[in-house]
Structure formats: C-alpha cells, structure tokens
C-alpha cells in the first residue's frame, strides 16, 4: 500500500497496455489487460484512498485478467471543493470507459473510495455500466468515520510516525495484525503514505454522500463488506444494500484491507458475479462460503 506510481500493475503473463487521458488539467492513467479471453464483460477496477492500481490491485488485476479483460484506473486527485471530489473522480472513470471500452457493458468494481466513485459513475451514467461491485464502500460519511478522519488529520499535524501506526491499526483486521511478527508490523506501518494527495483524498472522504445517486443505480450490484472493517464498517455496506435497488450483499472476514487480507476470495466473488450477475436475485444475502 505504498505508492501511487504508474509502474505497470502486473507481470507474469499479463500484457497490459498503459494509457492516459486528460480531463481539464488532470492526467488520468489507466491499464488495460487487452486480451478478451472469453465473452465475459470486461471488468473496470477503481482503487481506494491513497492507493493505485499497483498497490491495491497487484493481485486482483492479473488474476482476473487471466479469464477476462481488465481495465484499471489510477484516479487523479482533483483540486477544488472536497464535496465535488466523488463526482470529479467518477468523471475520470466514465472517460476511461468511453475511451477504452466504448459501447459495451462493463462490470465496474470499486474498492473503498473507489466504491464511492464507482457508484457515482454508475448512478450518473447508467448506460456505461452493466454490473457494479462495491467493496468496502459507504453511503454517506457518518460521525464514526468523521471522528476517525479527525484523528487522522490531527496526527498528520502532530506525529506522522504515530499516524502511520494508526493507519495500520485501522486498515487491517485485528486477527490479521495479531498474527504478524514485530518485523512484519513495522514493514506494514512504513508502507502507509501521509502525503498531500492522501490528505486531499481524506478530505474527499469526509464529504462523501451517495444518498441521491444510489437510487439511480439501475444495474445488478454486488456489495462486499469486511466483517472487521473499522474504516468503512460493514453497516455502511448494508446501507448501500438498502439503497441500491438491484443489490445483493456478502461479507468477507477481513478488515478494510480486504484486497490484501482476502484477495483470492475477492477474485472468486468478482469473477462469479461477472459471469452471472443474477446468480442471486436482488435483495439476496449470498450464502456463507464454508470452504
């Protein structure tokens, strides 16, 4: 979870193309695995706060790209009022879809802030999105989240080292952190960023509100919540489940960092939904997975 660099997201056998486009003075980078493999809809991935395609989707991008085309957007952080952040970022996603995958249904999958952006993109341009996956998203920033945001902001002013520790504490589930050695904890702590881009995205997080846009989402939607998520508690995902008409809901046993804690389970959920979005009807809570 370190950098927002535009190093290619993958290696192995995925031959992704890197491209970019401009919206105003923002440069938006994206990656495209190109190879269709099958008749499945392409998947468009949108990363979360402080992340990038590489840092959040180093696993999901290449592993999903083994079976279907994957495009991932590296969000550019807009200047301007933070309450317009979600829509400015959604425009970037819409522009990438129109450029790279015009005139075909895509499955749009967002994680954390990326879920907010994806939901906004799907609600404002329903014609672009055939299926929507919201991982660790939220409907409207609530008092618990604002309190955490306050602490984040205060620590950034007073003690950046403490801020990194606080981020690790908040991002990962208690059971995962409990298993790590001291060295592994320190490696995790040092990977967190505290720069101005991160701070700007935290301001956007304070102002998220999908209340109006959620009812406009028309496509089949899968909501994925982390049982142990402190940053976007699962109850927030349940609010999305209530607000989006054609939604189904499932939980993974994870903290907010589900892309790190349960990446294979996310591949399963995303791939299965992409192959058959209506395997479970609107309103369904997916049956528990008991491997």
């Amino acid at each position, binding site marked *: 979870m370190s950098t927002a660099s535009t190093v290619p997201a*993958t*290696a*192995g*056998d*995925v031959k992704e193309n890197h491209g970019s486009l401009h919206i105003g003075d923002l440069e938006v980078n994206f990656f495209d695995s190109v190879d269709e493999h099958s008749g499945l809809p392409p998947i468009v991935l949108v990363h979360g706060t402080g992340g990038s395609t590489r840092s959040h989707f*180093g*696993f999901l991008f*290449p*592993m999903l790209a*083994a079976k279907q085309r994957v495009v991932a957007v590296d969000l550019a952080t807009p200047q301007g009022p933070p309450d317009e952040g979600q829509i400015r970022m959604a425009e970037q996603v819409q522009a990438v879809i129109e450029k790279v995958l015009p005139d075909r249904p895509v499955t749009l999958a967002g994680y954390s802030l990326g879920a907010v952006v994806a939901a906004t993109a799907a609600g404002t341009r329903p014609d672009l999105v055939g299926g929507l996956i919201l991982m660790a998203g939220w409907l409207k920033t609530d008092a618990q989240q604002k309190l955490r945001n306050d602490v984040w902001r205060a620590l950034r002013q007073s003690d950046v080292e403490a801020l990194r520790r606080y981020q690790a504490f908040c991002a990962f589930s208690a*059971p995962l952190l409990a298993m790590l050695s001291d060295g592994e904890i320190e490696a995790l702590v040092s990977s967190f960023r505290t720069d101005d881009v991160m701070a700007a995205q935290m301001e956007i997080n304070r102002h998220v509100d999908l209340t109006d846009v959620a009812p406009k989402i028309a496509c089949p939607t899968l909501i994925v919540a982390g049982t142990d998520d402190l940053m976007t508690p699962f109850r927030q995902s349940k609010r999305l489940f209530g607000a989006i008409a054609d939604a189904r809901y499932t939980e993974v*046993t994870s903290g907010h960092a589900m892309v790190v804690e*349960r*990446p*294979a*389970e996310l*591949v*399963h959920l995303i*791939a*299965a939904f992409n192959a058959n979005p209506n395997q479970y009807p609107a309103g369904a809570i997916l049956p528990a*997975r*008991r*491997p």
Partner: protein
Amino acid sequence: MPTSTPDALRDVSVIIVGAGFSGLGLGIQLRRRGETSFVILERADDVGGSWRDNTYPGVACDVPSPLYSYSFRTNPDWSRMFSPGQEIWDYLRAAAREEGLGPHLRFGAEMLEARWNENDHRWTVRTPQGEFYGDVLVAATGHLTDIKLPEVPGLETFTGELFHSARWNHDFPLAGKRIGVVGTGASAIQIVPQLAEIADQLVVFQRSAPYIQPRRDRVFSEAEKNLFRRDQRTVEEMREMLFWYNDSRFAARRLIDDYLAEASWQALSHLDKQVSDPELRAKLTPDYTIGCKRILLSDDYYPAIQRPNVHLEAAALERVEGSTAFSAAGEAFELDVLVVATGFETYDLPSSYRIFGRGGNALADHWSNGMQAYKSIATAGFPNLFLLNGPGTSLGHNSVIYMIEAQIDHLLAALDWRSAHDGRVLEVSSEIENAFAKRLDEGAAETVIIRGGCSSWYLDPRNGRATLSWPDFAHRFRDECAPFDPAAYDHGEQSAARA
C-alpha cells in the same frame, strides 16, 4: 472366479472403490442422506488410504490440519497446526465409525477388475471377496497410493534392508545403522531428521534440490482446543483463513512477479538463515522456478543435513552392487539400509488397467495420451463411472480435501438426477471431455508447472501434459466442477433393475 458368499451389499446402487479421504467422504455424505445401497471396497484391512499406508517416522501432512479435514466434520482436537499422520488416520477411522460406514465397508476387497456390462448397463467389480454389482462405479482410488521404485540397476540385489517410505518396515532396527535415503521430496524431508538422530551414518541421495519454506508449525494449547470444542465457528474461521490464504498463493504458481519473488524469498532466506556453509548452500539451492515441484515445509531438514553423521550426496542413486550404493557423481557408499522415498505412480495409474468400459476398452488405453476427465470426474466410453481425486485435481497451493468435496457435490447431484430420471445412464462425449482437457492444458501452460523448468510428478512424461494438475485457484474448481449439468451428459440407456 471365486464364488460369492452371501452379502446384502453384493448388488447396490453405488460401488465405491477405496476407503481413503475420497471414498469415506462420499460414503459419509451418502449415509447422511439416508442412502443405504452402497458398498465401499477396500483392498487393505482398514480405512485411511495414504494415512494408513504411510507410517514412516515423522510422517505428517504439509497442509494445516484445520484445513486438511472435511468441512462437514471439523475437528477441535488436532494437537498441532500440522498434525502427525497417525492423528489424521485416527480422524478418518473415527469418521468412518461414527458416521456408520462400518456395515458398508468390505476389506481385503481389492478391485481386480471392473467391467461395464453392455446388456444391463451396470458395473461388475471382481474382488477376492467375490463380485459386486452396481449402477454407478466410483473410483476413489487416489493417485498417491501405488508406490514407485526408482529404476536403478542392481537395486533388487541390495544385500541390506530395503523398503519404500510408504511400506515402512518397523520390525527392522535402524539405530546405529548406515542408512541411505533416496529422494528429497515431501516424505524424505520428514524422514531425514528422524533417521539422522539414530543412524550411524546417513546418506541422502538428492537428484534435484527442493524449495523448503519455514513450517510455522505450532501446538494448539488446551485452552485453544477447548474453545474449538465450545465454539465450532472458531475452527471454521481458522479453516477459512487458511483456505483463502493458501488460495492466494496460486498467484505465484501463475508466475505473477511480485508473488513469485515473495515465495522464492521465503524459501531462499530460510536456506540462508539455516545453512551458512556456501558450498552446502549451493548444493541445496534449487535450479528451477519455485512451485514447479511441490514446495516443502520444514524447520528441521536443513539442520539435520548439517549433522556430522549426515552426508548430502547431490546426485541421484545410479546403481547398487551388493551393499554398495553408487551415486551418479561416482561416489560409493557402504549401506545397511536403503529407504526409497521416491513417491508414487501418478500419471499412469495401475487402477486404470483394471477398469473396462464400453467395448471392453481399458481406461488406461483411453488415457494413453494422458489421463483426463470432464470436470475431472467423468470420462467418455465409461458410463456411470465417476472419478474422485483423479486427473486434474492436484494442487501445489491448497488442500486436496476441498477438491474432493467439490467432486462429491457433483456426484451427489448426478445421483439425484439419476433418481429423478428412472436411473438413466450418465456418460460424457469425447468432444466434451476433450474440450475440458484442452482448457486445462491451456491453463497449465500459463503456470509454473509447465514453465518452471523442472520435471515433476504433476507431468505425464509420455506427452508433457500436466494431467495431474488443476491449473487454477482451488475455489475455481468448486465454481466450475462442483455443479452438475445434465446437459453435458448423454443419457439414453437405463440401468437394469437390481436383482
């Protein structure tokens, strides 16, 4: 042909061959559904499969115990994360007993021949206990069961004691002996630390150095076990965590750089930490990409190799003369005992020479270009035959019990379908089987099994196909292969009514 003694299960709906994890798992599910018309034929005198046969010192599984067990029968009593083989065997015996499989088991009932009868559309299985007749035949015969000896000139003339790791001779005293161990696979690296303690001299013949990662084993405390008993969800949560973590390791098998580098680092830093002598370290450094052969887990193998009474011979055993074992490097070793830890028949299964389908064709002939099956379970020309833990089910990164359970679900749905459709015969076409096999071949071509620069037991040396291997996430096997789709099967004939 032996005469058949009276047996209420002589003529049944389902004949299961083999009482290991697969056969017992299916039997348990049939019992739980109230089925009674099935028999489990077992060639040995007890259940347990590999865990009955492998009794060598140090035997354990390299999949964590909470995961290496049935999801429908979790066990709060495992002594450790990687429990000893005896505990796994005990677990299976208790499962068979407590789930009421006793009346369904026939021991000493080796499948000598299984034949599809074109007239009544049923299977006949000949055993030393007489013939058994069934609508459906399930080959739960496994693929790590029939031992494989190396083709070493003079091996049969060895004047000392010689046995395979899975046929351990516990009557022979090994203390103070000069012992050779042939092989450095999963069995050998568990055996070597044990023998190093008691041998006078121990020579390990290594053809190819394995990757070894830290085992991270630990004892489950009484308090933990008590919690597991009081709250079954805690066992399941640990199992789920282990399953999904293991499944994420497939990214390295699919050669995704970051994950491949991480897996290599885990192994090679372990080697660096445990072995300081650069010359020995070089001998112990593998020459292929990690994951091409099974990745081994051990904390005591490298220390054992460095004991003064242990010699690592980084060359294959080439020939044996009397009591002398010669390595391919030309070294000679005087030995009292040779332990052959060279694994099992995998790609050309002995059981496939005993199963005859339509037109009297042997399964081995059908598989002369490599074994394959639609969804790893059904094969053309062999109606109502289902394979468990057969082609395309081996994993290098997760638990095979999960694979077996997915297959059992497919099979149970197939049996339900037959019940609802007048017992019609289920058979896949060659086209469907070949299309599935082609997809597996294409998948394997993207993985380290094919591209890792080694020859492993996952490969069929006759054609280079990775016929043993499931080249994907384990969860993908359940997603693809657990569902039963009657449209994939032809189903014209009906099994005749039972006698």
